[in-house]
């Protein structure tokens, strides 16, 4: 897991906020931010060319005809992000991945193995392994939401668990 204080992250200038079902792939240095619960964000970049991007998918696999066009599914969003990066000039053999999100249990003693968050994280591992893209960093599971900031040109990522404010008793 790459976790750095926000102040150490150099602002690349351009900023994007990624919602569920969206993809950003770019040559231009960009800071992409997303907030994740059980969803997964896969961050990919080509370190030599500084081309990178992120997806944010909600479910691991879509099988219906209409699902196969939607980046809301991991089996669509991951190949789609790779394709967009390759179209921009990235070399698939150089791509590296960071994977975040997949909250999957509110109860530490009861891991949600069938939980959609756990299955989302497994799908990222499986789909990236199939394409021989190494996952160099990941932070998945647990009960909390996450805020992720990714810099497309350097591959730097900052992830913060969003802790609930302590309730007043």
């Amino acid at each position, binding site marked *: 897991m790459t976790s750095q204080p926000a102040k150490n992250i150099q602002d690349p200038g351009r900023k994007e*906020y990624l919602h569920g079902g969206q993809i950003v792939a770019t040559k231009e240095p960009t800071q992409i931010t997303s907030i994740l*619960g059980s969803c997964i964000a896969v961050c990919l970049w080509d370190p030599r060319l500084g081309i990178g991007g992120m997806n944010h998918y909600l479910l691991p696999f879509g099988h219906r005809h209409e699902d196969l066009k939607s980046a809301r599914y991991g089996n669509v969003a991951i190949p789609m992000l790779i394709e967009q990066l390759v179209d921009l000039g990235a070399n698939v053999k150089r791509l590296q991945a960071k994977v975040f999100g997949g909250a999957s249990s509110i109860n530490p003693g009861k891991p949600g193995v*069938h939980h*959609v968050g756990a299955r989302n994280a497994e799908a990222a591992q499986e789909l990236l392994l199939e394409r021989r893209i190494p996952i160099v960093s990941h932070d998945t599971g647990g*009960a909390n939401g996450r805020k992720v900031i990714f810099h497309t040109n350097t591959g730097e990522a900052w992830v913060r668990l*969003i802790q609930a404010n302590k309730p007043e008793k």
Partner: protein
Amino acid sequence: MNESANTDKGHRATVLVVDDSKTILVAVGQILQQENYKVLTASNGEEGVEKAEAEHPDLILMDIEMPIMNGYQAVQTIRASEQLQETPIIMITTRNALEDVEKGYMSGCNDYVFKPVNTHEFLEKVRSWLETAE
């Protein structure tokens, strides 16, 4: 009967839906009842907190913009109750701006479903969070 509507303790899972829109309460209620979940409803945050404390549902679905008490305040109040700290809460809302979503997680929710609701995604999340509930 849909077995997934049962908790691991064998009882039919109860889902509390909190929303000020009757249309949403009816629509979401129907989706859940078709899956054999027991559905409770509340039309504002304050009523939602009262029902959560009285009924101890297995899962709570919470709108944000509501009269009397909004969804953020309601989730925070629910989390103050010792017995409801491990009850999964999913925000169900149109508010998808970064700061709004972050605020939801900071109030203590576990996940989000955005309106208009996609039934398949919605039920996946409901089943998933019920799986790990107490």
